[in-house]
Each structure stands twice: as structure tokens, then as C-alpha cells.
């Protein structure tokens, strides 16, 4: 028989906050929080104090005052009598444009190069290695400036396109490559063009439905219907037919040389092209490595099993390897998209008027609102990055391994 005595009631001692593992983490977190709050309040009070010392206030009113400067590339209507806020929006639109174009192109380049780098063909895989190493290891700014210099120095001036000049337009007088940019025809949407667009969208949906149907037939009966050319035909033929039935509602406005420059058409400025190409090639090199890593992460047994089942190399890649590789590829791909978007702020090097150049450059310079402007700029890039990563996370969730 044993006597059970009450265990001694442990009294709480202060030293337990440090030596007792139950409380220690709490103590550390509290101290860290207090330090963080102190650091923050010091920074804020320091800023307020220094703004006062400089005689400046903190005010976003400048966004509604007249901007007074012009912007060359405008996706939304703007002129110099509009506000600084409007100018910032024009810049935001330009940033989004180059970021979107860049992300799409970089992905295409990256996937192609990543796959080709694993090619058994020695020349192809070496060439791709050279591309990846060259672009990955040289600063992006140099590529942007280099491509811009190539575009402006090696292309003819608009006046060379005059009668007797040394340059001529391409594709039956519709495209002009000049040192100010590339001029391409501009579509004019006439009456009834709404119907044409509706038909086009409907036929795209039709093509997708056809592919679904073909897949279902394949899974249900094992019969393989042709996929590519019927889908293409469904997507294109009705639109072409309706184009002629409706009496050619969409016409093209060709660029024509007039005065100092080409008039009409769409001008793809050299600054946009240089930035777009450089961002795509640079980020594409990183994406290629991510794709290569993703493919190599799928064990060789999968390829062999698929070959054993009689799948051809093409199908093996598309149906077996890439779907599994995507799970590895997508998360680092997201950060490459974010990088590309933020790197687009190097635009000022070639005079591309992105949000860094309008809000973060000219507006700040004309109004002297550095703190406000930089805060807005930081918040814009933060917001756009969060949006991109949340969109990509949705895609990631749809591709990741489904656990049941």
C-alpha cells in the first residue's frame, strides 16, 4: 500500500517565463511583438517629424491636380489637361500590358526551351543551354538597352520610306518597321462586326465542346476521333463564312507615311517591343530551367511504363510526363510571373511610360510628393502581385495531386 500524497501545487514563478518550455515561446513572441511595435512607431514618428522639419505635409490631393505632361502610349484616353491620377492610370495600363504580353511569351519560350534542352539532339540541347545561360547570367537592364539600341540603330527612319527611299513596307504595304516602332494595320470595326465576334466566340466554345465529346467517346468506347483538325475547322470556318455573308464588316486601316511619321494603323513603339522581348527572353530562360527541373522530377519509370503500354514519345510527354511535371513547375512559375511584372519597372531605361515613369517619375518630380508617390507605387505593385499569385494559386489547386 502506498500513500498517495497530493502533488505539491506548483506556484507560478517569474523565472518560468524563461526556463519553462510551456511559457518560453509565449515570452519570446511577446518581446518580439513589443520590439516590432516600437520600431514601427519610431519609424512613423521619425517620418512625421522629418516631414515637419522639411515643412511638407502628407496629402494625396496632388492626384487630382492637372498633370500637364503628355504620354506617348495611351491605352485609355488621356491628354495633358487631365489629372495626375489619370496619368497614373495610363501608366498602370501600360505596365499591365507589357506584364501580360511578357508573361505569355515568357511561358511559351520557357516551355519550348525547357523541353528542347532535354532533347537527345546534341546541337539542339547545347543551343538551348547557351540561350539559358546567356540570358540568365546577364542583367536584365543590359538586355533591355541592347535590344532597344538594336531596334533604333538598325532599322530605317520613316523618311526612308518616301519615294526613292532606301526602305519599303512589307506584306503588301501593310507593315512598316521603322526606328520609331513597328506600324501594323488597325482593324476598323464596322456595323455588324458585333455579330461576327459573337460567331467567333460561339465557334470557339463549339470547338471546346467537340474536344470534350471526342474525349468522352475515347473513354467510353476506346474509339479515337481525330482531335486537332476538326476543332480547328469548327473554330475558324464559321467566322470566315460569316465575314463574307455579313459583307466584310471588319476592314483594315493601313499605316500611311504622312508628314514626319506614319499615320494610321497601330504603332508598336520600340520601347514596348524592346521591353517586351527582353523581359520574355530573360524570364523565359528561368522558366526553361523550371520546366526542365519539373520534367526531370518525374521518374524515368513513368516514361518506360508509358512506352511499355505502346504510347509514342509525343503522347508520353503530353499525357504522362507534363501533367505530373506541372505540379512541380507551377509554384516557382508563379514567382517568375511576379518577377517579370516587377521587372517591367525598368521601362524607364528605354522611355516606356509605365506606372513607374508616370506616377513614380514625372508626377513625383513635378509635385515633389516622393513619399506619397512611392507609397502608392509600392501598393500598386503589391496589389498586382497578390492578384497574380492568387489567380495562379487557383490554377495550381486545379492541377495539384487530388487526394481522396
Amino acid at each position, binding site marked *: 500500500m502506498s500513500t498517495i500524497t497530493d502533488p505539491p501545487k506548483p506556484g507560478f514563478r517569474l523565472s518560468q517565463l524563461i526556463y519553462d518550455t510551456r511559457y518560453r515561446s509565449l515570452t519570446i513572441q511577446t518581446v518580439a511583438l513589443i520590439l516590432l511595435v516600437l520600431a514601427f512607431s519610431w519609424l512613423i514618428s521619425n517620418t512625421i517629424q522629418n516631414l515637419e522639419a522639411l*515643412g511638407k505635409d502628407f496629402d494625396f490631393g496632388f492626384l487630382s491636380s492637372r498633370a500637364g505632361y503628355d504620354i506617348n502610349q495611351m491605352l485609355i484616353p488621356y491628354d495633358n489637361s487631365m489629372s495626375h491620377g489619370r496619368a497614373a492610370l495610363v501608366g498602370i495600363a501600360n505596365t499591365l500590358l507589357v506584364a501580360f504580353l511578357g508573361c505569355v511569351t515568357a511561358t511559351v519560350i520557357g516551355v519550348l526551351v525547357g523541353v528542347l534542352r532535354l532533347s537527345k539532339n546534341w546541337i539542339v540541347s547545347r543551343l538551348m543551354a547557351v540561350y539559358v545561360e546567356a540570358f540568365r547570367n546577364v542583367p536584365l537592364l543590359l538586355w533591355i538597352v541592347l535590344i532597344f539600341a538594336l531596334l533604333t540603330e538598325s532599322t530605317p527612319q520613316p523618311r526612308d520610306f518616301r519615294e526613292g527611299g532606301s526602305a519599303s513596307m512589307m506584306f503588301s504595304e501593310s507593315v512598316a518597321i521603322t526606328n520609331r516602332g513597328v506600324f501594323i494595320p488597325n482593324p476598323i470595326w464596322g456595323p455588324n462586326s458585333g455579330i461576327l465576334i459573337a460567331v467567333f466566340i460561339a465557334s470557339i466554345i463549339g470547338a471546346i465542346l467537340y474536344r470534350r465529346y471526342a474525349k468522352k467517346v475515347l473513354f467510353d468506347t476506346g474509339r479515337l476521333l481525330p482531335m486537332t483538325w476538326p476543332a480547328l475547322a469548327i473554330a475558324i470556318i464559321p467566322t470566315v463564312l460569316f465575314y463574307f455573308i455579313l459583307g466584310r464588316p471588319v476592314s483594315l486601316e493601313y499605316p500611311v507615311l504622312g508628314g514626319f511619321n506614319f499615320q494610321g494603323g497601330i504603332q508598336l513603339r520600340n520601347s514596348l517591343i524592346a521591353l517586351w522581348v527582353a523581359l520574355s527572353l530573360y524570364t523565359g530562360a528561368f522558366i526553361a530551367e523550371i520546366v526542365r527541373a519539373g520534367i526531370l522530377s518525374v521518374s524515368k519509370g513513368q516514361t518506360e511504363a508509358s512506352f511499355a503500354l505502346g504510347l509514342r514519345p509525343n503522347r508520353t510527354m503530353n499525357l504522362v510526363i507534363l501533367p505530373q511535371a506541372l505540379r512541380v513547375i507551377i509554384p516557382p512559375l508563379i514567382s517568375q510571373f511576379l518577377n517579370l511584372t516587377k521587372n517591367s519597372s525598368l521601362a524607364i531605361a528605354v522611355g516606356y511610360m509605365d506606372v513607374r515613369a508616370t506616377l513614380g517619375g514625372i508626377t513625383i518630380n513635378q509635385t515633389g510628393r516622393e513619399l506619397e508617390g512611392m507609397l502608392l507605387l509600392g501598393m500598386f505593385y503589391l496589389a498586382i502581385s497578390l492578384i497574380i499569385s492568387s489567380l495562379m494559386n487557383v490554377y495550381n489547386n486545379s492541377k495539384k495531386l487530388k487526394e481522396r
Partner: protein
Amino acid sequence: MKTVFLGVLATAGLAAGVAGAATLDDVKARGSLNCGVSTGLVGFAAPDADGVWEGFDVGVCRAVATAVLGDPDAVTFVPTTGQTRFTALASGEIDMLARNTTWTFSRDVDLKFEFVGVNYYDGQGFMAPRELGVSSAKELDGATVCIQTGTTTELNLADFFRVNSISYEPVPIETNAEALQQLLAGACDVYTTDASGLAASRATFENASDWVILPEIISKEPLGPLVRHGDNEWADVVRWSLNTLIAAEELGVTSENVAELAAAPTNNPEINRMLGTEGELGAMLGLEASWAADIIAAVGNYSELFESNIGESTPIGLARGLNAQWTDGGLLYTPPFR
């Protein structure tokens, strides 16, 4: 969010923390003057083959350094672009800015700077290749115009084309050198900046005669050195260093005769007061009595500075024009040294 906010606050806080009040004491303690200049505009501020900065604006920096430290070489030149110059000055990175900067209301009042005077009266002009066949800026409808971003020229240009109801395509560029490269490559039809800058740039071209400066001057651009708001002692030092250059020309004091004139009091009391042989003007500024004599001995008077850097005998070949003394029909007119 947190990091961005912290970063911005930290930068702003640190930057502003440096901007103390007593710049004069800071410069003396440091032993050198931090002077903001342009990134390279021949005649106004550009390094020579040995990397030594020279030019008309550089002369103002050297004059202030001579007045404060007695040594025209005690200057650290900080190249600034149109966009970075005001932040550099406001943050205290530079003590003064002598970078063909236009004196405007908003810069003086809203941006909290103090323009101490005008060292060059300028106006905005256009330069185009001769073969373009343009004789007036009003014929520039549809032209592509290279422009330095972050300057008053950007706003003047927008106003000019708006008033004349003609269109143009702006190509914003960071520095003068990049703009010239674009112009020479034909990526823009015309280049617009201060007329003095156009003349200076044209002088560096291989075939200067292939380029014309259009007759229109579309704005007033009084260019002058500036300092931060709120430090009046320092502003006085810079202001009167500039005035010394101008007054010396008016009074006939040159780098050659200054030693002789400063040795003993002359018949002209104003020269005596300026050169420190009479009165206590130097002590009032917190400088040596011989401050003004040192300036003139080191960099010369306004006329010497003008003629050796941008005058008619140089490749830039600017006439005095508005920048002549008031006695010669120009606008240069200093308050008396009294």
C-alpha cells in the same frame, strides 16, 4: 505590405534625418562641398579627359567651395538627372544644386527650395537635322520629339503644342547623352531642351552644321543654383558667391588684377568692401575676409567664366545676349555690396 511600408518609411526617415539646418558648418567640418551637377552637358558641367569636372555651372560650385573652404578643388561633384536632382537636394545628399535648373514658382514654394539667383537666362528651343527642312517649330505637326523627362521642358512642350493645336509624339529620355543618341539615330525628329543646352550639344556633333536650332524660344528658363529651404545662412553664402562673380565683372575685377586690387584699399569703396579691404562683409557671412577675392582669383569673374566655357570663342559659341550686364543691355544686375 509591411516590408514595403517599412522600407519606404525607413528611406524617407533616414534621408530626411540627414537634412540638418547648419549646412555651412557641415561643409566646413566635412572639408568639401557636395555639389549637384548634370550628368554631362559640355560647357556647363562635364568631366574633361582627365576626369576633372569643368564648365559654367561647375564654376559656381567651385566659387562656393572657394568662399567656404578656400579651395576651388574641395568639391565633390554629384551627377544628377532631371529626376533625381530634387530628391538629392531635399535629402541632404548634396549641399547645393548647380544644374541648369529652372527657377519656377512651384519649385521655389511647393518643393521647398531656395533659388539664390540666376546664372543663365535661357529659353526652351528645338534642334532638328537640316535635311528635315523645318524652319519653324509650328511646322512640327506629328513630329516625334525627344525630351528629358522630369524637367520644365516637358510641361512647356505640352503647352506649346496645345496652344498651337498641333500634335506630337513625346519620347521621354533620362539624360542629355541618351537623348542625343536617339536624335543622331533618327529615332526622334527634333530634340527640345534649353537653347543653351542645344547649342552645347550641337558643338559635340561631328557635323554641327547639319543641325539647325529653330528660331522659336517657347519659354522663359531662368537657370540658377538652388539650396534647401530653411537654411538662410547657407543660402546667403551661395547667393553672394554668385553675386560676387557678377559684380566682379561689373566692377572690372578679374582673376588677373584681383591680387593687386585686394592688396590695398582702392579708390572704389564697393570694390574694397567686396574684396575685404574695408568693412566686415566676410565675417557677416561667417567666412574669411578675403572670400570674394579668393573666388575671383580661383574661378575668375562672370565674364571670364562665360567666355572660357560657353562663350563665342568656344565651340559652343553662345552670345552674351540676355546674359550681359545691365549696363550693356542685359539682365545681369546684382544688389550692391554694402
